[in-house]
C-alpha cells in the first residue's frame, strides 16, 4: 500500500469532554446511520451493540466533591505500534476480515468475511468491538428505515464503528464526479459528529494542517522519545488519548481542561502522573 504517500489521509477525531453532555445523540445517530439493531433487553451493557458508547467517569471523591465526565468511545481506529497499521485487532484477525486502510487510517470490518472467532475483541482494549450474539431482528415494518449504505449484519460476526466509511465513499465519489482530486473537510463528517448538539466532536484529517482536528490536536509526527511505539502524540497539553502508552496509537483524541479527566485516560503508577502531567503533551514539544 501507499504508506509513503504524503497525500494519504489520516482521519481522526477529537472529542471535547468539557462540552460533552452525555446526551447520547451520538450513540443514537450512529445506530440509525449504521443499521445497528436493538433487542428487548439492552440493559446488559456487555452485550449491547453500541459502536459509539458513552462511558460515565467519576473522580471517585465523595459527596459533594464528586465530579462526573462523559466519555464517548467510538472505535479508536488504532494505527498500532509505531503507527504502522498493525492495530491490535487487525494484526490478530486470522481471516483478514478487519483491515487497516493506509490511505485513510480507517480500520474496516468486513462482515461477510468475518467468521466470528472473536480474537479481535479480545485484542481490543477499548471494547469497541461487538459480536452479533443474536440474529438482528427489526419489528415488522421497521426494516423500512434501514439504510442501503451499510449492510445489516448477520448473527455470528463482529461489528464496530467504521468512521462512517460510506460517507467517505460518497464524498469521494462526488469529488470524482465533480472532477476534483480531493474532498473538502465538511464533505466527510461522521454521523456522530454532525448529530452532537454540543458540537463536542470534531472530525477531519489529522494529516491536513488546515483541518480543525489538526489545529486542536497538533499531532507530533515523530515517535515519543520515551516510547518509540507511540506516534502522533498531541502537542496540546489538554489533549490525550486512551491507553496511549500501550502503543495502540488511537486516532481518537480527547480534550479536557480537568486534570483528573486527563489522568483517567491512561494507567499510571503511583507518583508517575505528577511527574508528567504538566508536559503531558509530546516530549519533543517539551
Amino acid at each position, binding site marked *: 500500500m501507499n504508506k509513503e504517500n504524503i497525500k494519504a489521509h489520516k482521519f481522526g477525531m477529537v472529542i*471535547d469532554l*468539557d*462540552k460533552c*453532555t*452525555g*446526551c*447520547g*445523540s451520538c*450513540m*443514537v*445517530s450512529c*445506530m*440509525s*446511520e449504521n*443499521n445497528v439493531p*436493538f433487542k*428487548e*433487553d*439492552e*440493559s*446488559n451493557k456487555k452485550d*449491547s451493540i*453500541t459502536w459509539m458508547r*458513552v462511558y*460515565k467517569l*467519576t473522580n471517585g*471523591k*465523595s*459527596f*459533594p466533591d*464528586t*465530579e*462526573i*465526565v*462523559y466519555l464517548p468511545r467510538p472505535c479508536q481506529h488504532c494505527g498500532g505500534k509505531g503507527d504502522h497499521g498493525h492495530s491490535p485487532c487487525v494484526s490478530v484477525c486470522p481471516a483478514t476480515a478487519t483491515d487497516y486502510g493506509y490511505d485513510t487510517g480507517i480500520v474496516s470490518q468486513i462482515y*461477510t468475511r468475518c467468521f466470528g472467532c472473536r480474537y479481535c475483541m479480545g485484542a481490543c482494549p477499548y471494547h469497541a468491538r461487538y459480536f452479533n450474539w443474536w*440474529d*438482528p431482528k427489526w*419489528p*415488522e*415494518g*421497521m*426494516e*423500512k*428505515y*434501514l*439504510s*442501503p449504505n451499510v*449492510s*445489516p449484519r*448477520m448473527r*455470528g460476526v463482529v461489528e464496530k464503528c467504521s468512521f462512517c466509511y460510506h460517507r467517505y465513499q460518497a464524498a469521494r465519489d462526488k469529488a470524482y464526479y465533480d472532477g476534483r482530486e480531493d474532498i473538502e473537510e465538511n464533505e466527510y463528517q461522521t*454521523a456522530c459528529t*454532525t*448529530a*452532537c*448538539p*454540543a*458540537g*463536542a466532536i470534531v472530525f477531519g484529517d489529522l494529516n491536513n494542517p488546515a483541518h480543525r482536528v489538526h489545529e486542536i490536536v497538533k499531532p507530533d509526527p515523530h515517535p515519543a522519545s520515551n516510547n518509540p511505539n507511540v506516534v502522533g502524540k498531541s502537542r496540546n497539553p489538554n489533549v490525550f488519548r486512551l491507553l496511549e502508552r500501550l502503543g495502540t496509537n488511537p486516532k481518537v483524541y480527547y480534550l479536557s481542561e480537568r486534570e483528573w479527566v486527563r489522568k483517567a485516560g491512561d494507567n499510571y503508577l503511583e507518583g508517575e502522573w505528577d511527574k508528567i502531567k504538566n508536559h503531558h503533551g509530546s516530549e519533543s514539544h517539551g
Partner: protein
Amino acid sequence: MKVDRRSFLGLGLGAVAGFSVSPVLLKLTDDSSIWTQNWPWTPVPVDGEVMYESSVCSLCPGSCGISIRKIDDRPVKIEGLTEYPINDGGACLHGISGLQYLYDPSRVKTPLKKNGDKFEEISWEEAVSLVSGKLADIRNAGTPEKLACITDKNTGSVSGLFKRLLKTFGSPNFYIMPSLESYLELTAASLHGKGTTIGFDLDNSDFILSFGAGIIEGWGSPVACFKANASRKERGATLCQIEPRLSNTAANADRWVPVKPGTEADLALGMCAVILKNNLFNAAAAAGFKGGFNKLTALLQNDYPLSKISEITGIKEADIEDIATQFAKAKMPVAVFGKGRGDGSQSLKELVAVHTLNCLVGNINKEGGAFVQPVKEYLEFPEETMDDIADKGFAQAKLSLYVHDLFDKVNASSQPVVEALLVYQSNPCYSLHDTKAVKQAFGKIPFVVSFSSFMDETAKEADIILPVHTFIERLEDIPSGAGLSKAVVGLSKPVVKPVFNTKHPGDILILIAKAMDGSVAQSFEWETFDECLETAAGDTWGDLSENGYVILSEGVPKIPHEIDISFLSKAPDSVQPTGDGDLLLIPIDNMRLPSAAQAASPFAVKTVSDEELKGKDTVVEINPKTAKGLKNYDRVTLTTPVGTAKVMIHLSEGIMPGLVGMAKGLGHSFDNKYVSNKGVNINELIGPVIESGSGLDAAFGIKAKISKA
C-alpha cells in the same frame, strides 16, 4: 462380476476418495458460506435515489429543524437541520430516533372503539359519527360545559382548533398539560402581567444561575440549550447549578451547590436579601417595582437572615453570600428556574422567587438576561360563530384551574362533572402524579376520546381512539416556546405517505365539527386542515411555506415591562413533602428518557444507563451514607404514602444523603417490548401536593422508606 464384501468395501472407499477429490465438496463448502452471507432473514435495504427534506421535529417543545434523508420514498435517517434558527444542525437522540416512532408496530393503525375490555377496529366514518353523535347528545342535553379537552400546549393551530371546538361547542374546559412554557407564562403573569412570557438569553449571559434547571437534561429547547452550554465554555461564561443531586448539568457546571430539596425558594429569597442588604440591586429597576417593594424588603430583611437560610438550605452562609454577590456583580447575569426539564411539578413561589433575582439586578430585557414580552401570536382564525348554547356554556366557570385538579374534581363527585373528554398529544394517565387516581377519574368519565398515534397509557383508558399522523406524516405549524430568547414558528411537513390508516388531527376535528350542527359546524368551514392553516397563517404563510420557518421575534425586546411583586409580598408558604418516611424520593430528569407525552424509542432505551434500568428493574440512586450496608444492585422495596415498588440500588456519591433519586420516564405499560414494562413509573409513587396561593401541584418529592426485599 461377483460383488463380495471386500469389493463392496473397496468400491465404497473408492467412491469416498473420488468424491473428496472432486470439486463437489469444494463447491458445497463455498456455497454454504455464501448462503451464510445471504441469509434470507437478514434484511437487504433497497437502494435508490438519495433525497433530503427539511421539516421540524415536534417530539418535544424544542421545535428543532430536521433534515430527513430519503431513499426514493423511504425516509432512512433524521438529522439536525443546519442553519435552522433554533438548533443549527445537531439534534437530540429522540428526534434522531423519529423513524422508530413512525414505523413502531405498536402504533394505533386504524380507529378503535372499546368494547368491554377490548378494542375493536372501526372505520373512520363510524368513528367520526360516534364521536359527533355523542357530543351532540351532551350539547342537546344543555350541558356543553361538560365536554373537556386536554392538549399539550396553548399555541399552534391544532390546539387552536381544539380550543375553537370547545368554545363553539360551549365549554370553557380546555386544559393543557404542565410544561415549561406554561410555568413561564404563569411566572410572567404573576410578575409582569397576563399574556406575557419569559425567555432566557443563555447564549449571551456571562453568569447563569440555575435553580435546578436541567440545561443539558432536556430543559427548554434541548438542542438550543446544549449549544448555549457548549458556547459558554468558549465565552468563559459561568454556570452555577443549584440542586441536590449531581445531574449532568451540575457536573458540567463551573460550580455545583447542593441544596436541600424544596428549599430553593428560600435560597433565592435569601440571595435577594443579600443583594438588598449589600446594595447590589439595580436601583432604577427596583424603583419601578409594584406591589410593595418596601414590604418585600422588610420581609426579606426580617425573615431571611443568612444564618437561617443557611440552616434551611444546607448551604454555607459564605457560599450563599458569594454566589449572590457574583450574580449581582456579573455584567449579564441570568437566573433560570424550572427544575429538571421544567415540565414536572413546580412551585410558583420558587419560580417567582428566582425570577425576582432577575428583576432585582435589572437584567429584564437586557442582553444576556431574561426577555419578557407578550406571547407571540401569528395565527388569526376567523371569528367563531356562537349560538345560544355555546354562549351560555362558554360563559360558565372552568371546573378547575389546572389539569390535575380537574381529575380530583371528577373523583370527588358522585355525578359525572365531565361527560366527555378529548385528549390530544398528552398522556395524563402516565405523566401526572398519582396515576392510579388519574386512571380512576378516567374510569368515571363516560366518554373519553383519545387522539393518539400510540396505544399509550391514556389511549388504553379511552372509549374511542382516533389515530393521528406522526409528525413525520403531517403538515403543522410548530411554534417555539420553552424559554428561548427568540420566537420562531416552523413548519413540519409530511415527508412520507401515512404508514397506517391515520388522519391529521386537524382534519379529524374538521370532520367531527362538520358532523355536528349549530355554531360548531358553522365555525369549521374549511375543507381540510391544510386550507385552515394556510388561511389562519395569513401573511406568515408565504415565508413559512417557503423557508420552513419564520422568526417572529429575535434579540432584546425593546418594550416596556412592569414588575409586580405582590405575590411574594404576601409571604406564601413553602410546600412540604407528604409522608413520614426517613428518606425523600425525588425524580431525576435525564436527556435519554423523555418523561412526557412521548415514550422513549427503542434506540433511546438502549442508551439508558444500567445505573437507572437493569433488566426490568428501575435502579434508584442513593448516597452510600444512606445505604446502610446495601450494595449496588441489591433489591429493595420502596414505599411511599402513594405506592410501593421493587427497585434496585445504585450507590452514588453524587446525590445528597437522605435522598432517593429515581429516573422519570420508565415504567410504561403498553404493548411494546422494547420500551414498555421496564422499571416503574415514578408518578405511581408520588402524589400531588397543592401549593397554597397558586393551586399548582408542587410536589417535588415524597417521603419514602426502603426495606431490603
